């Protein structure tokens, strides 16, 4: 099939349009489920055919049509080893989120439509090989999440939605400047990403190269997000509905990391005299993110905010692995993206269930929930263990590779990053102890345990986390080949 990527991309959009015009909740969610799940079938199909040995910047399932020809803008899609597993992640996570949100009552047609638009936007980012197209999809993802927060959000939703929108939008504009600078200073008259990346080293002024690099870097930094540009994230999470949070942390943040691997790492060798400074900058940002966000997570009173900060810390590993720039660390960082997407989804779903059944997420107001909600306690414990890096779960594989790989090239930073490991276990277990264990806090009323539609996605995610923790091969091999081919990687 020649246009399978377009199918994956447009089926959710068509689904969104259909969902929007449904009258009942039942039909809205059913169409949404179909619209988000059919891409998974196609994704698995191309994943099975995917040749992982030619993995980096050698694109498969390519589609290319001229769009705005005199500017060199094309509708140009393709996948390689960097993007393929992330497309899979997006294809897995979105239908599970739809199932999780099965009970949504408030304007369900619009709610599910926005989830599908979000899915399409993220697919587009991971598939686009034309910088202009990439940017359109990159911005497209902002819109549905903005509405998800500002309509279905918590009490402080307006502030959070505006902050999210403007913060990330400003960063995107800086990135856009970088894209234009790259386009004009290479003079290749095309927005094709592979061509531009190849031409990057040919830009004569090294300062210009660094400026372009930093402009793009800023766009990705804010999206990941990296300390000190992370403060929009906890606010957005706190106000966002659970489904929005799951997709925000599960796939939207991954766009930032994807940008690092897709665009920035191939440019590293072209930085010339500034190469080591840039690497150091990345490593510093990474380690600061890991440690700072870890201690902040420890300080949080709101369970959801704690999980939000844990995302910042985990994305710090992505940055560290990228900065260390050897195949072990880079493939580990890529795997961290994939793994964190699965793990953080379980965490946000757990928190969502608590919010839904006892109407608070403030840790000190909870207590002994495991007594009344044993199923939640089981799955949440699994998610928390995965998040704190327990072996035999996917997070450990990623973090082990990042740390081991980073020690080869950035030993001091790798050791510093390890300082956060105990505190990471600390805030997870402390939260479990206060929220789930001990005697039941009778003031919370009589909560019901997980609904069937809540349990199914969480259980599937936990199984996937264990599967990829025990047998990471299917995804890891793709990433490993991809990262070995990045120019300059040792």
């Amino acid at each position, binding site marked *: 099939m020649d246009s399978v990527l377009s199918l994956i991309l447009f089926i959710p959009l068509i689904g969104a349009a259909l969902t929007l015009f449904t009258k009942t909740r039942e039909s809205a969610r059913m169409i949404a489920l179909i619209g988000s799940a059919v891409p998974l079938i196609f994704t698995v199909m191309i994943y099975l055919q995917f040749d992982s040995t030619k993995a980096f910047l050698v694109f498969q399932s390519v589609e290319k049509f001229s769009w705005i020809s*005199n500017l060199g803008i094309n509708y140009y899609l393709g996948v390689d080893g960097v993007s393929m597993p992330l497309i899979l992640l997006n294809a897995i996570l979105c239908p599970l989120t739809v199932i999780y949100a099965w009970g949504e009552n408030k304007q369900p047609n619009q709610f599910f439509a926005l989830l599908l638009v979000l899915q399409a936007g993220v697919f587009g980012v991971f598939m686009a090989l034309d910088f202009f197209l990439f940017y359109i999809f990159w911005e497209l993802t902002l819109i549905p999440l903005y509405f998800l927060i500002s309509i279905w959000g918590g009490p402080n939703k307006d502030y959070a939605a*505006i902050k999210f929108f403007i913060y990330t939008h400003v960063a995107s504009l800086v990135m856009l400047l970088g894209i234009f600078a790259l386009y004009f200073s290479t003079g290749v008259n095309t927005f094709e990403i592979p061509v531009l990346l190849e031409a990057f080293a040919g830009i004569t002024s090294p300062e210009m190269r660094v400026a372009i690099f930093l402009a793009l870097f800023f766009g990705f930094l804010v999206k990941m997000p990296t300390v000190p540009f992370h403060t*929009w994230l906890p606010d957005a999470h706190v106000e966002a509905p659970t489904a929005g949070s799951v997709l925000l942390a599960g796939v939207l943040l991954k766009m930032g990391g994807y940008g690092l691997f897709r665009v920035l790492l191939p440019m590293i060798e072209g930085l010339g005299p500034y190469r080591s400074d840039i690497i150091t900058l990345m490593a510093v940002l990474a380690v600061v993110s890991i440690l700072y966000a870890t201690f902040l997570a420890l300080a949080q009173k709101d369970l959801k905010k704690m999980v939000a900060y844990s995302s910042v810390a985990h994305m710090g590993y992505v940055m560290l692995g990228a900065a260390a720039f050897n195949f072990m660390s880079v493939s580990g960082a890529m795997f961290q993206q994939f793994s964190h997407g699965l793990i953080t989804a379980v965490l946000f779903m757990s928190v969502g269930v608590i919010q839904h059944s006892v109407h608070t997420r403030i840790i000190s107001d909870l207590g002994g929930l495991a007594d009344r909600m044993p199923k939640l306690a089981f799955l949440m414990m699994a998610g928390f263990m995965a998040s704190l890096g327990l072996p*035999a779960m996917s997070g450990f594989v990623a973090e082990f590779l990042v740390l081991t790989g980073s020690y*080869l090239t950035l030993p001091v930073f790798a050791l510093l990053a390890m300082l956060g490991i105990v505190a990471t*276990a600390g805030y997870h*277990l*402390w939260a479990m102890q206060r929220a789930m264990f*001990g005697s039941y806090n009778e003031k919370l009323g009589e909560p019901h345990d997980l609904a069937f539609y809540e349990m199914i996605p969480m259980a599937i995610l936990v199984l996937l986390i264990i599967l990829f923790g025990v047998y990471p091969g299917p995804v890891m091999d793709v990433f490993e080949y991809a990262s070995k081919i990045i120019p300059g990687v040792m």
Partner: protein
Amino acid sequence: MDFGTLAFLIPTLPVIAFVLTLAFGNKLQSRAGYISIVAIALSFLISVLIFLQIYPHGTVEQSAHWFSVLNVGIFIDPLAIVMLLMVTFVSLLIHIYALGYMSHDPGKTRYFAETALFTAAMLGVILADNILQFFIAWELVGLCSYLLIGFWFRKPSAAAAAKKAFLTTRVGDVLFLAGIVILYFNMYTHVLPEVGGHGTVYLLQFKTIFEHLTLIPTDQLTIITLLFFGGAVGKSGQFPLHVWLPDAMEGPTTVSALIHAATMVTAGVYLVARTFPMFIAAPESLIIVALIGGFTALFASTMGLVMNDIKRVLAFSTISQLGYMMMGLGVGAIIGAEAVGFAMFHLINHAFFKACLFLCAGSVIHAVGTNDLREMGGLFGKMKITATTMLFSSLALAGIGIPVSIGAIKLGTSGFVSKDAIILEGAYSYLHFGGAYGSLIFFFGVAAALLTSIYTFRLWFMAFTGKPRQERHAHESPLSMTVPLMILAVLALVFGALTFSPFIHYLETTYENEFFEEIDPNGYIHGLAERGGYHIPEEPIVHLDLAHDTLIMMLPVIAGLLGFIISWAIYHKRLFSVASIGNMRNPLFRILAKRYYQHEIFIELISLKFTYGVLALTGEFIDRKIVDGIIDGISSFIIGGAEVLKKIQTGVVQNYATATVLGVALIALVLSWGVI
């Protein structure tokens, strides 16, 4: 049939039992425990078959590609097989005992599922053929201990103890992980160029590491081994990371028995034994192991003297006995690979008598309904089997015996034979051949032996003799509980005496066999020891006649008997009043009863005040007021400019959605139509 091919089933069967028990346990109700018992019994059986097949010179080695540069594999050598036999056997007995002990607990399904997984994880540690797999299983042991210590999660103290255990051992685990990371770096830099590309050689495999140990710089080895030892300190409850172990008794007593005897704390000792070639090639590392071990042995036994909770006394005795094992390994700096034999022998004997002690304590608690020794007393008449088996295992813990050998058989309880070996053949030869801090280490060993004997018999006298201090309807436990006790008690009495010599000789072949001879024909461990700056005498220590100094030879025996007499005088005959010295006005007593204020230091000062109070809350302040403050400042300007945008917010969602769809469509249309 080659039983080695079944080796993978040893940890897999309990994992299957875990899954099955979780899935079907609620339907089976009281029979839920049988799944785990059958699985572990089969694991034991397979271990026995493999042992019979490979004894005395064989090994089992299997390896498969995992992903990237890593493999999974199984490695069974003498060191691993004795651990396998002990863990499966002791765990089996504890599981059978738990059938009776847990019969009234509503959570017994979860209990048997988790103990099966616990056993599986420990078996995974033992079987690992590479250090990463070892670490993975090691962490799963930590997870299971967390779940089981917090088994009664509705009790706040249990939830707190579980967290404390996980976090304290986690400190050690991070050090261990750092050691692995640095080891990989060294293997990658120094060994990989020698052995060629990836795919054929796995750098973290034990055999690869042992084979190329001489290529790694010794200062790097010191760092790596000390980091490994940091992991062992956490898991095996050595000073200063021992604080979790006394609290770990919040779980069911059978869990304590598993943790203390079979499935957890021995993992640290096993780690040092498993990587012993690295330790002996690293300057200073083994001496630190010996010092920490010896100090822990003495330090923990001082606290054991004043505890009133029967399980807590036993917990401190475990810490102390683990200290002996570490000391036994540490003195390998002088006595060589034999040290592994001594330490492992004590580990096995300890497993028997400590499992027995904990199960006896469980039987007592089951009968009288309290943990407090002060409320017990005079139970001998009511619980003859428990009292007798506990006496046997107490004799073993206290190391009571006669320093006479008949042929190869040493007369004495198991604990005597192995502890005597560590103190005399180990610490004393270490001193004799001029090992650093030799007299200090020897002193630790003897002093701890005296204190051990005192608190052991204190416990026994307080529980079983004298007048009942409270009226309770104590009764003997059912057979499913007493039979495991009897088996363990017999082993605690005679296993050591019967197997000492063959055990030590078998264990020696762990690091002295054809594989190691090929690496260094002049003696693999001897060669490495010289790199580490140690000197091992040519003659094996067990063949040396150290008996020229009879008084020293008698010291462990004297310590044991003296402790018995002191306890007998104070706690049985009541020749002295305990209350006159054992009260809070006595500063020495207070510091012991307060456990050297470790709770105040570790929990309140380091965890709460510093980590949470200073680091986390300051971070929160900076984040909200400064980092986010700047952003809010900038964005309020932008938001101010966006007032216009705000005014068109009608609040009707349909408008937004329509605008969005239209907008996107419009952009696309304008762009393509305008240009094409």
